[in-house]
């Protein structure tokens, strides 16, 4: 049986296919304990299947929707209680009644999704017929409401994470002579790490420049992501009109109230490259994790400034370097540095893995992020890699 798609069933499918959530299990365990029932479950009703996303006494997974009792529950707005499933013609023939585990009693409360439609049900099942009292029905309704709340919080968080991902640059910058890639892997749905790149006009009229940035707002999760979005947008705005030092200084002036009111600070590394010459201006606000690397070795691009939001006034003068044709600019967040024991010796020891000839910037970024994630990073993990392409890369000739 395939039911026509509806917003509610689409939503159920989406939730069922996202990562399983421990907190749904908690509510289901609570239901099982309160009712002393052998089976309790949260079942989501998709287009043609029922997804058991949290359960006690019954395996998680999917089953055909015609074998589901909960698909009847989602079609109503109140609790569905069946004293003995064998005596109800709608359910007498379904497999879990005629065969193991031979359930007899069912009570389920519909659970509504963000779409306003019911997407599933919290249900308890027993192997002997029984009847719920008035208080027990109220309790089941309360647990259903609790689960609804958990689901909507999760969906909000997922959406916030999507918004943040969609704000990251995805297409190559509109400037010749560079290759750039970046990736953020937030520890939660959203986070305080971000990267950015965009093309600006040199304020002295010397042509187009590629600006890259990587920032890390203290903390994790949605709250940190709000501040990260602000710092990113303000930096973009100011960067159009001035050099990187002034752009960061003005960004701090604009965001200072919001950083201080929230007791947050943000590390930030900003670079501005002339792809034709390799001239690179940069500003390091307490970030410290930018290097230029090649087979000849590496050097750090750092300054003594504090993170934005720290209680001290700084001068914010840019520094300069030159990115040679065979060199990589690599900027990471502390989520990467932490798995390297916060040690530059470890960074140096790992450099060969990103300097292998033939790797694209995208592949290098993936190597860095995947390495950090697979080595137990607990923080947001971000990497940005940039190189010039208008020169023959001498490293590949060696």
């Amino acid at each position: 049986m395939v039911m026509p798609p509806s917003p509610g069933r689409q939503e159920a499918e989406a939730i069922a296919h996202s990562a399983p959530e421990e907190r749904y299990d908690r509510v289901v365990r609570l239901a099982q304990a309160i009712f002393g029932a052998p089976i309790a479950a949260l079942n989501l009703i998709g287009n043609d299947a029922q997804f058991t996303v949290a359960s006690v006494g019954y395996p998680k997974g999917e089953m055909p929707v015609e074998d589901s009792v909960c698909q009847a529950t989602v079609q109503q707005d109140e609790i569905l209680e069946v004293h003995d499933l064998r005596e109800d013609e709608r359910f007498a023939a379904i497999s879990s009644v005629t065969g193991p585990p031979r359930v007899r009693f069912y009570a389920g409360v519909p659970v509504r999704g963000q779409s306003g439609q019911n997407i599933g049900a919290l249900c308890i099942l027993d192997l002997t017929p029984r009847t719920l009292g008035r208080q027990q029905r109220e309790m089941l309704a309360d647990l259903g409401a609790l689960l609804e709340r958990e689901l909507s919080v999760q969906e909000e968080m997922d959406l916030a994470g999507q918004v943040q991902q969609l704000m990251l640059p995805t297409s190559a910058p509109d400037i010749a002579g560079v290759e750039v890639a970046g990736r953020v892997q937030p520890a939660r749905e959203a986070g305080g790490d971000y990267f950015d790149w965009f093309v600006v006009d040199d304020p002295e009229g010397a042509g187009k420049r590629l600006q890259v940035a990587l920032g890390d707002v203290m903390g994790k999760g949605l709250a940190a992501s709000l501040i990260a979005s602000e710092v990113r947008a303000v930096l973009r705005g100011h960067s159009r009109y001035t050099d990187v030092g002034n752009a960061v200084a003005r960004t701090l002036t604009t965001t200072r109230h919001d950083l201080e009111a929230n007791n947050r600070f943000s590390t930030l590394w900003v670079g501005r490259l002339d792809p034709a010459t390799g001239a690179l201006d940069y500003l390091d606000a307490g970030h410290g994790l930018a290097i230029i690397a090649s087979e000849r070795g590496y050097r750090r691009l750092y300054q003594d400034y504090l993170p934005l939001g720290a209680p001290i006034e700084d001068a914010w003068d840019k520094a300069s370097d030159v990115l040679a044709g065979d060199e990589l600019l690599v900027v990471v967040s502390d989520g990467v540095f932490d798995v390297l024991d916060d040690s530059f010796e470890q960074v140096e020891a790992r450099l060969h893995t990103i300097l292998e000839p033939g790797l694209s910037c995208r592949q290098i970024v993936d190597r860095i992020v995947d390495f950090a994630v697979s080595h137990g990073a607990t923080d947001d993990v971000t990497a940005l890699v940039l190189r010039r392409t208008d020169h023959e890369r001498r490293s590949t000739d060696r």
Partner: protein
Amino acid sequence: MTYEEVDQGTHVVLAPEGKFNLVAAPPIKARIDDLVAAGKARLVVDLHAVDFIDSSGLGALIGGLKAARQQGGDLRIAAAGDQVRAVLKLTNLDRILAPYATVEEALHGW
């Protein structure tokens, strides 16, 4: 994460243990705010038993430092391990939160 607190009259020593991160930082920051509000604005955070700090932990220390200084006091850190020192140095926060070798040294001038 647990932390010990010793009120020495002229100053209060807080000694967190283990990981000073997103989970551990808020209660310690709240305690620092309470102490400062109660007029105890000379604080030493003894970090000898902290084996890991992240940006949330640093945020709690900087927030506590700001609160203490606004009340005419100070927050000083003592006995930081290698990881804590590395992170302070990386972020340049050691410019405003200089690590003292011992709690006794952190008390100078108080």
